């Protein structure tokens, strides 16, 4: 099946209402008075297919909020929705009809290549993928070996499917005349006809990338080599030798070190024995110190108690004396020394006691006894303590001796090992340091080597790729076949339209533009003739897509066929045509006009017969009277600024165009 894009319906979602135009397969005609919005229909379609901007008429600005286009691409319906005021906003695509879009989630595409952050990518890529067109990068200047590449956009192909009013019959059709940019258009033309084999372009791209890489590698290698030469780097073999020497030295040192470590372990048995003694004495000393401490505390308590006793003994003696001297008071009364009141004393007054002399003596005897026994206890404790102190002194001496022995032992066998070990370790570190630096140097050298070998592989690659390219070029389909087919179709069209003097008709094989009577298209002076050739050339391309596998969306939008024809010539186009030549050609002849429509209908019929989708949308001021009845069925929009025959006043049909 051949890829196609069919425009189904244009919907302008307005503030008061929606404005719709429906389209069918085959020829669709829009006609009406000037300034009724006919051309806007094609402009909207172009805009919804990714054009960068749209010129909005005043009534559009005041009535329309956004635009939608229902299309069918390869049997799948899509609705494309785009804001008409913000062309840089994402374009939304629903995989359904316009009315059902509420229940679908839209995909959002960026309108151009520069906005790459869109959630679903770029709109052009979406269209190319939907149409099954290969996505390629084409050379900007194909003759140069390391030319830049530019991504092929659907917009480039759109040039061959949409002729706007300015381009219609213009000398600058398809950008002719601007030769710097035109080379790219030529590449697109070749792409459409698969003359530009995808393999070739891929390979060429690869080749160009490889060549640039080779160039940069060469430069890098030169820089690195220069630098290394200037800084006096050793060569790879000498570096290898030096590293090997380091390794040998390192190994011998570590061997020596191991043997020293083994000796040290063997000699340490003596030390272990001493160490056990040391810890034993240490433990004993601690135990002794603790018991001395305990005894000391006990003795202290006994001493305190003894002091209490002896104080009490003195006290009892003092009590006896006081009793004797002061005498006894028994319920005596006397006058107060201060106030002369009577003072009465009770024996219990103040909580003091008066013990009997015998009880006191008894207490005295017992206290003396207790004091004596305590004294004995204290003496024995002191003796015990003394013994412990002697033991402690002896233990301390032992401990000191053992410690000294350990010190001498250690000093005796460890010191020589240590110095030897130290010097060995120092040497070992210096060797490994040296090795490290050597390895770093080697890494640099190896990288340099690497650059060189990479260069070689790339050079090999380039030669094989060049061979492959040669082979592909030989097998590629020739552009001449395509051009002669298009020339034949143009001839047939001109014959149908009945143009005079049909000779030396062809397609220029340099810039693929039509030649009539031996003259290049852009050198033809008659605007009318150019218009007819434009239509003929564009419709030939459409027809070729019916017959062949061509990367073309299989629709054609033609704006104002009668641009240079007859009474409708607009003032701004007058300077682009030679009116006398137009008269001589007889382009205003209604018959020729009629023939153009007939030829377009013929192409649609041919496509229908071939069961190939094909759509032509024509915008014109008026249709030939003789055809108007026949064309009524395929007229999709007909506007009249004066509302003749109840015709709508324009695309925006609910305002008064006359006043606008």
């Amino acid at each position, binding site marked *: 099946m051949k890829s196609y894009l069919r425009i189904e319906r244009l919907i302008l979602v307005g503030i008061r209402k929606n404005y719709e135009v429906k389209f069918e397969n085959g020829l669709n005609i829009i006609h009406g008075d000037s300034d009724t919005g006919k051309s806007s229909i094609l402009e909207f379609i172009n805009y919804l297919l990714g054009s960068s901007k749209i010129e909005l008429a005043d009534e559009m600005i005041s009535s329309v909020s956004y635009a939608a286009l229902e299309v069918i691409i390869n049997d799948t319906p899509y609705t494309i929705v785009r804001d008409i005021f913000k062309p840089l906003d994402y374009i939304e695509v629903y995989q359904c009809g316009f009315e059902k879009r509420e229940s679908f989630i839209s995909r959002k595409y960026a309108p151009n290549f520069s906005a790459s952050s869109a959630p679903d990518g770029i709109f052009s890529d979406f269209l190319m993928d939907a149409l099954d067109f290969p996505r390629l990068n084409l050379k900007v200047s194909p003759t140069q070996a390391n030319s830049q590449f530019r991504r092929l956009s659907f917009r480039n192909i759109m040039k061959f499917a949409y002729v706007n009013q300015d381009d219609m019959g213009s000398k600058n059709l398809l950008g002719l005349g601007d030769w710097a940019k035109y080379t790219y258009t030529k590449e697109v033309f070749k792409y459409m006809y698969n003359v530009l084999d995808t393999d070739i372009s891929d390979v060429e791209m690869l080749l160009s990338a490889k060549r640039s890489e080779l160039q940069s590698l060469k430069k890098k290698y030169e820089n690195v080599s220069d630098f290394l030469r200037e800084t006096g780097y050793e060569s790879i073999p000498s570096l290898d030798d030096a590293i090997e020497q380091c390794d040998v030295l390192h190994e011998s040192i570590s061997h020596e070190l191991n043997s020293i470590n083994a000796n040290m372990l063997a000699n340490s048995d003596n030390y272990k024995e001493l160490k056990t003694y040391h810890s034993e004495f240490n433990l004993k000393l601690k135990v002794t110190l603790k018991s001395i401490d305990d005894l000391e505390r006990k003795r202290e*308590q006994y*001493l*305190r*108690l003894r*002091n*209490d006793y*002896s*104080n*009490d003994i*003195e*006290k*009892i*003696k*003092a*009590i006896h*004396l*006081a*009793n004797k*001297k*002061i*005498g006894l*008071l028994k319920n*005596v*009364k*006397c006058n*107060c*020394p*201060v106030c002369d009141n009577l*003072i009465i*004393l009770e024996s219990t*007054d*103040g*909580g*003091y*006691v*008066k*013990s009997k002399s015998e*009880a*006191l003596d008894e*207490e005295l005897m017992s206290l003396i006894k207790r004091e004596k026994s305590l004294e004995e206890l204290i003496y024995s404790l002191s003796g015990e303590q003394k013994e412990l102190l002697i033991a402690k002194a002896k233990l301390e001496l032992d401990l000191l001796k053992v410690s000294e022995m350990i010190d001498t032992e250690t000093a005796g066998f460890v010191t020589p090992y240590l110095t030897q070990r130290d010097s060995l370790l120092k040497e070992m570190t210096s060797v490994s340091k040296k090795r490290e630096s050597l390895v770093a140097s080697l890494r640099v050298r190896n990288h340099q080597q690497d650059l060189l070998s990479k260069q070689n592989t790339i050079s090999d690659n380039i030669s094989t790729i060049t061979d492959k390219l040669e082979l592909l070029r030989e097998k590629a389909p020739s552009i001449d076949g395509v051009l002669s087919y298009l020339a034949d179709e143009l001839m047939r069209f001109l014959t149908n339209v009945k143009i005079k003097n049909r000779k030396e008709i062809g397609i220029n094989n340099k810039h693929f533009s039509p030649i009539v009577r031996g003259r290049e298209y852009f050198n033809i002076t008659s605007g009318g003739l150019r218009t007819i050739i434009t239509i003929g050339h564009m419709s030939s391309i459409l027809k070729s897509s019916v017959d062949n596998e061509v990367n073309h969306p299989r629709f054609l939008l033609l704006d104002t066929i009668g641009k240079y024809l007859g009474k409708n010539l607009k003032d701004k186009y007058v300077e682009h045509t030679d009116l006398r030549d137009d008269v001589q050609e007889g382009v205003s002849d209604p018959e020729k006009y009629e023939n153009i429509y007939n030829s377009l209908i013929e192409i649609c019929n041919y496509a229908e017969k071939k069961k190939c989708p094909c759509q032509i949308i024509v915008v014109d001021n008026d249709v030939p009277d003789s055809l108007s009845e026949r064309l009524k069925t395929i007229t999709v929009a007909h506007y009249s600024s004066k509302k003749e025959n109840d015709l709508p006043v324009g695309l925006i049909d609910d305002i008064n165009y006359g006043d606008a």
Partner: protein
Amino acid sequence: MNALPFIPLDEEVNLNIAILIIILSTLSKNKNGNFLLDKNKIQVFMYLIKNPSKLEDILLLTGKKTAPIAMEETFTMKSLSLNVDMLFDSMKIKSLLKKLALLGMLNVSKVDGVSFFSLTEYGEEIYKELDGEFFLKINKLAKNIDKIKSLTSGKLNSLLNEVFKVSK
């Protein structure tokens, strides 16, 4: 009350009277012959005499220690405990003064409405008869107190508070 075979020697009435006699005899006047001892100060000095370790602390605190206090008196079980009942029980000192009055040994002089106590001549006679080891010690302690006898009772109390804080 005294069912236990234990005699609270410090509570013997005549011992306490004897100590009070010594205090009144040695500390009642300053160099100029002014009376110094009111009831509160007598109470504090009684406490210090009976707790020589605290007396030692106070003297250390004021830096006025002169005659050393025998270790037998401070290094005791009693000094480890903190019994301050005597400092707050004013009934005890009142009863002792009353007894002293009955015995005809107490002399009272009123200066500015405050009662100051001293001994009568009879009292001084009795004081001279109090010899023996224990009373000699008490006399020594009283001599130590001599350095701080002019301090007010408020100042003495705050010094005691310091000492208690440390000993805790």
